[in-house]
């Protein structure tokens, strides 16, 4: 007997997506992660633009990851022109990333994912049961947004990060206020780990995901790095970002406006879980302790562990941000204008770790500094194939489950990936003027 399960519109994810499953008896005929977010083709908005107008448009690809898009865009642009930014700029950009990561993870863990574990429809229902838990999540989210406001000038679509550096440096008063918030954040993020650790275990499909993450050149950093590590159970491969087109394959599919990605023909997972697993040795001591409290075993056994990995990063990021702000207050910021930019014909390919994982921007510029062509590959697009694989395994494990139960488990798998569907839609043209 054949059966069809359709989730039309996934709730508690960013953007428009769904799931379709077709079963034939106990056999799984088809599993699809449908992405029907409208294509925005932002390439028309960036093509022909002067180099300093590109990042503000690129950030509009996605609100939740807007700082990551803006900074990856700047990194690609600066690389195309052979511009090196100062160590101070790199550090402030990293701080902006940590802010975005804290805000994004707090939003996902407390407002989107946690209600599932407790059988609740949303954070409002959670607040009725345990208001302090929701307040805790909101305080952490506020902290991440405060960092973004102080460094980036706005919590969504930062304005202050410009080619070569920052338009304005944060004031001492801003940093003093931020330090106070971060001290509270240290306590809050530890409480968040305890809260996530206390959630009832979720039924999961128990399939070890293949993982990919940026090899950071600054500890556990999200911003600096030029290589990607990919693991497939065996020895990890290290692949240069500059050659991403030779190892990262994409294909357009009918049911999704996000192209599907593969490395060596296999789907792979990016995001907090991949980072924690592949960069465990550079995790802050607080992060390592959180790992143990959460019972997160590595290498991971299920994509649902991404939720635990996000909690680990919350603790590690708040600790890093506090240390950094304390150091800045001790040493002071050097009053430096953005590095001078002299446009030239060239190609820039940059990768960073957005909250949801690896993000690539690749640009080519003409001699006047006008953008000729661009390619952007987002974490959710990279994850799309892997999401489908785990949806399939979930159905294969519980083919007899009733529709409602199965639907709930499928939704949890998708949500654990923390998909950002606005991002996933391929926005820009492939091929550098080819």
């Amino acid at each position, binding site marked *: 007997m054949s059966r069809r399960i359709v989730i039309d519109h996934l709730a508690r994810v960013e953007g428009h997506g769904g799931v379709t499953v077709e079963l034939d008896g106990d056999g799984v005929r088809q599993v699809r992660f449908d992405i029907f977010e409208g294509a925005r083709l932002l390439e028309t908005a960036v093509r022909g633009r002067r180099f300093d107008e590109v990042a503000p448009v690129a950030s509009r690809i996605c609100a939740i990851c807007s700082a990551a898009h803006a900074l990856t865009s700047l990194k690609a642009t600066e690389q195309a022109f052979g511009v090196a930014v100062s160590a101070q700029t790199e550090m402030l950009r990293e701080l902006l990333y940590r802010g975005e990561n804290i805000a994004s993870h707090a939003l996902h863990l407390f407002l989107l994912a946690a209600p599932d574990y407790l059988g609740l*429809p949303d954070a409002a229902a959670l607040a009725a049961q345990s208001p302090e838990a929701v307040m805790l999540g909101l305080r952490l989210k506020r902290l991440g947004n405060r960092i973004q406001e102080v460094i980036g000038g706005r919590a969504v679509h930062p304005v202050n990060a410009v080619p070569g550096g920052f338009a304005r440096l944060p004031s001492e008063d801003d940093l003093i206020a931020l330090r106070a918030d971060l001290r509270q954040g240290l306590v809050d993020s530890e409480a968040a780990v305890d809260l996530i650790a206390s959630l009832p275990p979720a039924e999961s499909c128990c399939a070890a995901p293949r993982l990919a993450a940026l090899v950071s050149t600054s500890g556990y950093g999200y911003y600096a790095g030029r290589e990607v590590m990919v693991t497939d159970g065996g020895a990890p491969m290290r692949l240069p970002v500059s050659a991403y087109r030779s190892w990262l394959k994409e294909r357009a599919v009918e049911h999704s406006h996000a192209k599907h990605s593969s490395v060596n023909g296999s789907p792979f997972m990016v995001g907090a879980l991949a980072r924690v697993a592949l960069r465990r040795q550079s995790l802050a001591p607080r992060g390592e302790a959180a790992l143990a409290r959460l019972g997160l075993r590595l290498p991971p056994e299920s994509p649902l562990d991404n939720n635990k990995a996000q909690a680990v990063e919350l603790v590690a990021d708040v600790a890093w941000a506090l240390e950094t702000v304390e150091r800045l207050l001790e040493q002071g910021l050097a009053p430096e204008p953005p590095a001078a930019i002299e446009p030239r014909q060239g190609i820039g390919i940059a990768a960073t770790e957005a909250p949801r994982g690896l993000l690539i921007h690749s640009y080519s510029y003409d001699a006047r500094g006008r953008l000729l062509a661009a390619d952007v590959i987002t974490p959710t697009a990279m994850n799309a194939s892997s999401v489908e694989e785990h949806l399939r395994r979930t159905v294969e494990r519980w083919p007899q489950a009733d529709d409602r139960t199965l639907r709930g488990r499928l939704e949890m798998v998708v949500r654990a990936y923390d998909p950002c569907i606005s991002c996933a839609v391929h926005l820009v043209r492939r091929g550098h003027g080819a």
Partner: protein
Amino acid sequence: MRRPATGIFGLTGCAGDQLVLLNCEEELLRLMEALDLKDFLMASSARDADCELDIAFVEGAVMSRADEERLVEIRRRSRLLVAIGTCAVWGGVAAAGRERWGQLLEEVYGDTGRRYDSLPARPLDQVVPVDLRITGCPVEKEELLDAVAHLLCGDPPVPADYPVCTECKIRENACLLIGQARLCCGPVTQAGCGARCPSFGLPCEGCRGPARDANLRSAWRLFEEKGISPDEVARKLATFAPLGPGVAAEVTV
């Protein structure tokens, strides 16, 4: 005070305006008490997709037949429809390549692209009547909360209709256009952001769309005086509001 039945919806966009609502961390729980949130897919799986609504907040542009159908359905069930964000009000950044949409789809997705449900971006009011507009890319938290507070009291909110320059002068920023001859969209862009970019020493990008009460004639004269060509200004203004009325026409004034 009666809790108005409220829906919060996103068409095609970056979800930034819904995110700004969720970023009202200090007010969020009280906001949820004040509004009877019936349908807010981004934040809740308990949704009533059919009930009548007193207020619908809609962000994003109309970029597919599915968006169009959803918007018509939202309009049908809502007493008051509020467009939030530059995409919903003016079309936004994705409206830039409207003329060659089919061709662009094919460039990006190949043959498969031709079968996608995808249309050039339109603001909401090109599809259904819109009662209120709160612009911004993204909307400002304070304007959003102010609008909700007004609506709860049964009054229409009063968004700024004057240009960013007004707020920039209040903040006593040095003028980037007059002082440095930089292309700043402040004279023609709707205020409400507190002149954020000029306060960082950056020219206004025009992300909030045209101001109704701008002195266009004087603005164009000033741009000309500073050696900034009308084409350049028009191109810049088209980044966020390519469908804004009068922008192109005023170039020749």
